[in-house]
């Protein structure tokens, strides 16, 4: 009998997820054995677990790229850095949740456990290199987030959001599974490495089958990334979910899905003409960038506006992905279109490396910014007006600068970062990502993205205008005070500015992410 031979090296990539799961189990048990009234300690456990897992992943990120567990997962800097980002987001989300749940008397160990489970799913999803592994991890991540979405189940909105997310998520997961099944049928394997090797022949025989498989898998990912037109669940779910969970979804889930998408297609497209996937990514990117920003424009509900903004940000990320798959065009072809690649300076050998760096840095920036922005919103929410329609209205931010200058300054930093205004991390992230796209020759798409993000700036600045230039309404709520919330927000705000001014060390690390297994 063929008994798998497991070594320590095989367990290395999944170690961060292991840490997260152990932390989650500890939290579950703490809930039943140690259910004191004051449960901030659970948030602290969650945060520390996430930070520990992040440290483990960071250690892994400096390992050479290789396959592990018989090629079912890979260990490479790209996925490990992504895990670091997810852990960072998880740590911040746990901290934010402490105050948020405390205010609602809803502190439960299960909440943090679910957050950690979903983080474990994200981490494993990013390193999966086999369809069944991929699917299981996707479900680990999804089921945790479904539950988290409906966690405050007494309100009408969370229940609706959770249910919608579950139904549509199951639908998209089935699409992905169906696509994987088709590809398995075409190639006879579920391991990406073997699928990639067998695909050229399969494609020659049955191109329709292969493309159908591609399309279905892509649709599954596009749902998780929240790319237009697979985005329609996003605003409803993001609005209904507890705000710290929304933050984690917008940053972590997206990050994991993008990495998994890149990994899957890197293997699959190898040996094929990448033109069709390239155009598909470009179209998704274009639709998301334009659609997300346009839809955000008329929103007065800040939480919903940020949901649309997260769609736009998914579009920017997909722009980077498209750059990765841009077909090499000879220098001198002068057609500049939305879906063509026209390198300015001949072929750039390092497009892939700069795309990985750009994606990671962008995700890092988006993680700290989104966590901070949603965290500020969470702090301004009042438990008693959960059912009112104007809970997240812009008016809530009016005059915040006079009432709470520190909060207003932090929120302004987050808004500027989302809009991509220097000297914030959002600006540099956009710079790196758009720069990589231009290097790859995606001039038309990059220009479209820049134009769309200009429209987005209006949306973000409007919040700043309300905070600084409108008088506060009489019944303006004060943010609740809880040290965890304050620590998380200060950390995010400092990170947003510090990384915007001083990206050097981090980009140096991320440059190593150019080492992606299989690329």
């Amino acid at each position, binding site marked *: *009998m063929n*008994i798998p031979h*497991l070594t320590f090296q095989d367990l290395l990539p999944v170690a961060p997820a292991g840490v997260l799961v152990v932390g989650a*189990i500890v939290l*579950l*048990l703490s809930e*039943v*054995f140690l259910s004191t009234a004051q449960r901030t300690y659970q948030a602290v456990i969650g945060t520390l677990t996430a930070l520990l897992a992040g440290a483990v992943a960071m250690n892994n990120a400096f390992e050479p790229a290789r396959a592990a567990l018989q090629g079912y997962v890979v260990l490479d800097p790209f996925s490990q850095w992504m895990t670091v980002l997810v852990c960072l987001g998880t740590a911040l989300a746990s901290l934010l949740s402490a105050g948020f749940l405390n205010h609602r008397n809803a502190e439960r160990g299960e909440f943090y456990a679910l957050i950690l489970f979903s983080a474990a799913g994200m981490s494993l999803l990013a390193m999966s290199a086999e369809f069944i592994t991929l699917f299981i991890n996707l479900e680990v991540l999804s089921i945790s987030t479904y539950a988290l979405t409906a966690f405050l189940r007494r309100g009408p909105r969370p229940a609706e959001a959770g249910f919608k997310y579950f139904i549509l998520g199951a639908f998209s997961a089935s699409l992905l599974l169906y696509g994987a099944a088709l590809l398995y049928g075409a190639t006879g394997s579920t391991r990406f490495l073997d699928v990639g090797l067998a695909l050229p022949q399969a494609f020659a025989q049955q191109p329709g089958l292969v493309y159908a498989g591609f399309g279905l898998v892509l649709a599954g990912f596009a749902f998780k990334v929240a790319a237009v037109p697979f985005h329609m669940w996003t605003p409803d779910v993001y609005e209904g979910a507890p705000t710290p969970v929304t933050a984690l979804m917008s940053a972590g889930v997206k990050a994991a899905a993008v990495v998994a998408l890149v990994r899957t297609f890197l293997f699959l497209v190898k040996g094929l003409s990448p033109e069709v996937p390239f155009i598909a990514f470009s179209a998704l990117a274009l639709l998301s960038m334009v659609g997300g920003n346009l839809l955000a424009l008329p929103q007065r509900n800040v939480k919903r506006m940020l949901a649309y903004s997260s769609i736009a940000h998914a579009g920017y990320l997909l722009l980077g992905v498209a750059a990765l798959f841009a077909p090499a065009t000879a220098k001198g072809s002068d057609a500049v279109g939305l879906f063509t690649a026209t390198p300015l300076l001949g072929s750039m050998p390092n497009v892939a490396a700069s795309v990985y760096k750009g994606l990671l840095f962008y995700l890092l920036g988006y993680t700290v910014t989104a966590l901070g922005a949603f965290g500020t919103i969470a702090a301004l929410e009042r438990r008693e007006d959960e059912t009112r329609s104007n809970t997240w209205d812009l008016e809530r931010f009016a005059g915040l600068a006079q009432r709470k200058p520190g909060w207003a300054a932090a929120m302004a930093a987050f808004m500027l970062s989302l809009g991509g205004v220097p000297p914030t991390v959002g600006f540099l992230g956009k710079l790196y990502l758009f720069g990589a796209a231009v290097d790859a020759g995606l001039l038309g798409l990059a220009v479209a993205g820049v134009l769309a993000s200009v429209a987005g700036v209006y949306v973000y600045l409007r919040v700043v205008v309300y905070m600084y230039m409108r008088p506060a309404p009489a019944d303006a709520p004060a943010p609740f005070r809880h040290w965890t919330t304050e620590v998380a927000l200060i950390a995010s705000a400092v990170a947003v500015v510090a990384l915007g001014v001083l990206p050097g060390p981090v980009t140096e690390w991320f440059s190593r992410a150019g080492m992606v297994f299989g690329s």
Partner: protein
Amino acid sequence: MESPLTPYVPVAIVLFLAGAMAAAIPFIAGLLGPRSPSAVKSEIFEGGNPPIGSARQRFAVKFYVVALLFIVFDVEAVFLYPWAVNFQQLGWFGYATMAVFAATLVVALVYVWKKGALSWES
């Protein structure tokens, strides 16, 4: 005669036997069993619920918890069975793997127990 379907012959036999058993047992039971019908006994039995009325009946959520727990441990048995069969060959590797698996379920059981999901009345 080597048809590609040859390996499936045992499967076909099992299928046939299963179908035959399913058909035969109620028939034999009806043939052999004593019969003393009453009004209560001849009611249509359906999972403890009155069979006639609105289909949109509400069930107590406790049923679902029990059902879910049953599935979890049922699945555990499904995994444990092939492991037990191959216990010798799998050796310590198999043992460690199953120990982790079982321990996870034990933790889950402890959690469920302490949560009070196993007590019917609370």
